[in-house]
Each structure stands twice: as C-alpha cells, then as structure tokens.
C-alpha cells in the first residue's frame, strides 16, 4: 500500500468516524435495523391450552395490518415470530432460547401461561431481554426491582381483588365476606389481594375462606359452609367449571349474598348459561376489554375498526371469541411502546419506553381504562369497569375503578 493510499484511507476512516455521531439517534440492539423489528413469542398452538392459540394468531394478524396499512412502526416492518410450546415449560425454554439466541429477537411479547413464563423468568432477566406484556394475570410479573426485564399486561389477580373490596367497602355496610378459592397460586393471589385491601383494621370482615382442588368432583360442601358462616358477600374465585357449580349451588340452597365472580369465569356461554341465567342474575364482575358479543359497542369507532380488521386480517377466527379482542389490544400496546422508542431500538430503551406509558388509550379496552406504567409500576392495566349480570348480558355500571398498587 502506497503512502498516498494510506493517507486517503486514514482520512476516509476519520471522516466516517467523525460522521457517525451524526447518526447517533439511530441505535439498534439485536433484532432491530433500518427496515425491521424482530419480536418473538411462544404460544400454546397445540396441547391442553390450545384455545389460547387464538391470541397469538390475532396478534400476528394485528402486526400484519400494521405492516401493510401503516408501513410498519416508524418505517420498520414488524417481523413477528410466534412459536408453539404446547403449554409445556421445557418446550417454552427451548423455543425462547431459539428466539433469543438464534433469531435474535429484540424482545418477546405475550408469552402465554404462568408456568411457561416462570420457566423463562430468570433466563430473560439474566440475558437482559425484554419479556414484555406476558399473557398471565399472576401478580409476580410486576416486580421491577428484582426482575427489571419482565412486565405483565392484564390486570393482575391482586388488583382485581382490591377493586372488589373497594366496592364492598363503599356500598355494603356490615359486609361479612365469604370466599371460595382454588387451592393454587392463582387462588392464593386473590386471597393476598383481599387481605391487603382489608388491612388489619377490617380483617374481621372476611368471615370464611374455603378452598377446593381442581380434582374435586363437586364443591357443594364448601358452599354450604359459606352459607353457614353467615356471610352476606360471596367472592367467587373459581375457574369456569367450578364457577358454574358455585352459582347454581348457592341459589339452590337459598343463599343470596352479593356475589363477585372473577374475570376469568365471566363467559356467558360456558359459565352462566349452564348455571342457569336466572340464578346468575345480580352477579358482579370487572371487565377491562370489550366483549365482542356485547351489542352496546356496535357503534363505537374502535369496535367497528376491530370488526373490519377481523374480516380482512383474521377471517378464520371466531368473531365471538373474546381472545381476538384481547390479542388486538395487547398488540396495540406493544405498537405504542415501540413507537415511543423512535430510532433508539435497543433492549434498554424498549424496556424504558414500556415503563413510560402515560394514560395511553388502547382500542378495544373498556372506555376510560387507560394503560399506565412507570419505572416502579410494571402493571400496565389496573383499571376496569364493574359489571352486573342482568339475566342476559353483562351490564357495566359506575365509573372506571382502579386499584393501582398505592
């Protein structure tokens, strides 16, 4: 190499180096580039929980819409890789490792299931990869101090319990609460929420807690115990099959407390109809996204948009399935967080922006339910609207209620 070339090369190199700060706003972590943002996910498309697969398909359809109609996010197409884990934690570990180590995704999004997310919790935080908006309601996903790379999305079980207690405090004087819970971490999560909300002062309000095992054939004796305790408020923390049994038994033994039913068992078709619609009248729950079967949304702009999207991008899905609304809203939340990132698409900034959602309005959430996060608040949705079952459908009443962890 002659001296002249050497000097030219050196100058060229210097110019490039000097010029690069000019591009400093554009920063990319793994999985991000000028043209693409790579997001990964595991979903139970097969296996015992395959009904949830509808969520993954809806989210893929949402990003397809973003790519085709909005030209992606800040000009970058979303490359959404959704893999099947069959709801088996070892498979989740394998697939997530593939996403992080082989596909090099920027973040994972809505990995589904409490056991599956527990299996990858430590790994994601050790690798410092955002584990965003996980699709489970357990309370442990909002722990920024110990797990700064993991964030929940839907209202967590404790927050839901706190909303019920708040309502009871304000509206039912001399409440005596009886509670039925499933004997696992899901049921216990609610119990923690109730105890926290009652505090030392009102501890006595909770007069009886009974549990059942998922293997129990019936829960008749538990309901009889609750009635015998003299409770006039019944908090029903059960999965669909048991929710049906509890509502029916309470009615049949002539026990008529004010009933609260947790959000996971509010399907009219699969829970309330088998229990007997008449027997479920007056049951209260909380809703945070719009139920597609509810006729009152039909003129709302976001609902119309959702319907058009369903027709165009998700035509094979069941239009009455609430999971399509859930997936749509969750994907919209990620879109917002990524938009806020601008041209700084590093994993650090993705996490920073996900923790910086301020009063964000997300389509298909109940009117007034806003997404809020902060560096110390990793629970995006902590609001809902109380709804009462009127014998045919859920009817929302009262204002938006929240149970932010304060």
């Amino acid at each position, binding site marked *: 190499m002659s001296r002249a070339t050497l000097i030219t090369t050196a100058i060229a190199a210097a110019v490039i180096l000097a010029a690069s700060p000019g591009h400093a706003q554009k920063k990319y972590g793994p999985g991000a580039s000028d043209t693409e943002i790579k997001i990964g996910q595991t979903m139970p*498309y*097969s*296996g*015992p929980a395959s009904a949830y*697969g509808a969520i*993954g*398909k809806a989210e893929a359809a949402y990003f397809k819409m973003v790519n085709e109609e909005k030209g992606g996010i800040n000009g970058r197409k979303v490359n959404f890789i*959704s*893999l*099947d884990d*069959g*709801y*088996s*934690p*070892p*498979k989740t*570990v*394998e697939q997530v*490792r*593939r996403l992080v*180590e*082989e596909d090099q995704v920027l973040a994972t999004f809505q990995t589904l*299931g*409490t*056991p*599956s997310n*527990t*299996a990858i*919790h*430590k*790994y994601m935080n050790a690798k410092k990869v955002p584990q965003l908006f996980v699709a489970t309601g357990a309370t442990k996903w909002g722990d920024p101090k110990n797990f700064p790379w993991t964030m929940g999305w839907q209202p967590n079980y404790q927050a839901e319990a706190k909303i019920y207690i708040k309502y009871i405090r304000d509206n039912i004087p001399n409440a005596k609460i009886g509670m039925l819970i499933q*004997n*696992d*971490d*899901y049921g216990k999560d609610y119990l923690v929420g109730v105890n926290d909300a009652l505090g030392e002062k009102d501890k006595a309000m909770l007069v009886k807690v009974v549990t059942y*095992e*998922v*293997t129990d054939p019936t829960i008749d004796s538990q309901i009889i115990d609750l009635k015998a305790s003299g409770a006039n408020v019944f908090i029903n923390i059960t999965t669909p099959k048991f929710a049906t049994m509890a509502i029916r038994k309470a009615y049949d033994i002539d026990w008529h407390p004010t009933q609260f039913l947790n959000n996971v068992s509010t399907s009219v078709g699969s829970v309330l109809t088998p229990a007997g619609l008449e027997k479920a009248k007056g049951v209260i729950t909380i809703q945070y996204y719009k139920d597609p079967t509810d006729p009152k949304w039909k003129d709302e702009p976001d609902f119309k948009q959702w319907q058009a999207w369903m027709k165009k991008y998700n035509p094979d899905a069941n239009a009455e399935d609430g999971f399509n609304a859930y997936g749509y809203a969750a994907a919209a939340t990620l879109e917002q967080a990524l938009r806020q990132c601008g041209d700084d698409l590093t994993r650090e900034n993705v996490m920073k922006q996900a923790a910086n959602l301020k009063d964000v309005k997300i389509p298909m959430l109940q009117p007034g339910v806003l997404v809020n996060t902060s560096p110390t608040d990793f629970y995006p949705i902590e609001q809902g609207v109380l709804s009462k079952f009127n014998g045919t459908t859920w009817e929302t009443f009262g204002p938006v209620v929240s149970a932010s962890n304060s």
Partner: protein
Amino acid sequence: MTPGSDHRNRWGVAATAVVLACALPLVLSNYQTFQLTLALIYAIALFGLNLLTGYNGQISLGHGAFYAIGAYTAAILMDHYDLPYWATIVPAGVVCLGAGFLFGLPALRLEGLYLALATFALAVCTPQLLKYKLIEKWTGGVQGIVLLKPDPPLDLPISADRWLYYFTLAITVLAFLFGWNLLRGRTGRALVAIRDHPIAAETMGINAALYKSLAFGVSAMYTGIAGALGAIVVQFVAPDSFSPFLSISFLVGVVVGGLASISGAIFGGLVVEFIPNVADSISKAAPWAIYGIFLLGFMYLMPSGVAGALRVLAMRKTTRQTQGAHVAPPLTRSTGEVPQKSQ
C-alpha cells in the same frame, strides 16, 4: 463375514458416533447444543423404555411419570438440600429404580393392553399428584421449582451449555454401556425369552416374575436419570412439564427409533426432540396433524424403526459385496406378541 468382523464393525461405528458427538458442539451454537443435549436425555429415557417394551415386551404408557419422579428428585435435592447437580443423578436413579420395581409387582398381573392402560393411569395422575398440597412444601405446587444453571467446573473455558452437553454425553455413554452389557448376557436372553414365549421361558427355569419387575425397575431407573438431567438442563420443573403426552411421545420415540435396538434409542431421542419443531415450522394451524403425517410416514416406510431400516440397508450392502454368502434375515420382531398361544 465372520462374527469377529461384525463385532469389530459395531465397535467401530459406536466409537465413530462418540467421537462425532464430542466434536459436534464445536461447530454448533449454544442453542443447538442445548437441543442436542435434550435429544441425548430423551435417548436415555427411551433406552429405559426400550428395555421394557422392546426387549421384555411390556408396554408402558406411563414412563413420563418416572421421568417426572427423577426430575423432581433432582430438583428437590438441589433446591432444598443444596446438593450439587452432579450428585443428584444417582439418587434420582435409585428412587426411580425402587418406584419402578414396586409398580412392576402389581403390574405382573396385567398383560399387553391392560398393562398399557394401568401405566397410562400413572401418566394421567402424575401432574395432579405433583400439585398435592401435602407435598407442596417440597414440590412447590403448581409454581414448580426454578433451578440455577450449573457452571462448568475448574473454570473450563467452555459455555455452560457445552459443559452440560458433555456431562450428559458422558452419562449417556455410561448408561448405554451398562445397558448393552446387561442385555447381551443371561439377563438379556431371559428378558427376550419372556417376551417371545413366557411359558417356555419359565419351563427353562427363568423366574419370570422377578425378571419382569426387575425390567420395570431398571427401565424406570433409566428414565429417572433422564428426568434428573432434564431438570438440570431446563432449570425448571413444574407439574405441567409432565403431561400425559410426554409418556406417549416416549412410546412413539421407542417405536419410531426401533424396538429392541440400542441405537434405536438415539434415533428415537432425535425424533422426540426435533419432529415437533419441524411440525410447528410447517403449520401453526395444525401442528399435530403434521406430526401425525410424520408418524404415518415413519411407520409406513420404516416399519421396524429407523434403526431397523438402517440395519436392512447395511445388510443389503454386505449381501451385494459378498454375493452368495449366507446372511441371516434381519430381526424385525413385533413385541408383546406371543407367537403361539398355548391353548
């Protein structure tokens, strides 16, 4: 072809396989190494099941339960008693040996399909029993147990994934050598004799009851060791990890890999690990339908499993080379079938 050359040949193939297995992680990424480790672990489990189903003719649809017991034994020892990971393998094997032997005793009364159903019951109830509240203190209930990833010893300059791969490979080789030694001698002949003709075997003085329950125990031991390794490598155990489908995929792996064949377990392990991934990459809408098509294809094209098909290929080659020489027909026995009913 003399028996001696055949013997040397087989050692040659095995040695080549081990050398190849040692070299593979050097060219693979950590993630691919991790997948191979899982395939090896499944191979150990399948070897155990093969011992029972392939050699002894007892069908088990419940080996996922022993896999779970092994995994939980290792996890509890590491989590509650702070045992290092390598020290949990033997206890897991011993616990499963006992559990398998005890389960084998009542199972003696059951044959064929009835045994398959009884063992299936074991697979079905395992995930729920693991959630049982009296043992929740140890098992962690539905939450399961999260384990720490072991580091390579002596500050070896390799990644944790590679180290675990070599650790698993060493145990696999040991386990296979032990099993091969067991099967080529008296014990192996007794197991096969019981499978092929139980009455004749007893007439020859073989204690069928003892051998059958021992086969169950040793088989469970292998699967338990695999379970312990699985827990260490995946770093997590939970009831949902051991669904009944795990047991079924073990049986699928044994049959597709090759019944009554030692190398069949290796092929089976690769099938159990990789076919679901291939199916998922072909179709998200119906991964199980693709899985089913694969199974049909395997069974139609290789009725005696991958190992059997390779054996037939190798034989054809030798026949062509040494034309006119007498070659014994390949062993492709079906299992559990008694050739002649004695009635």
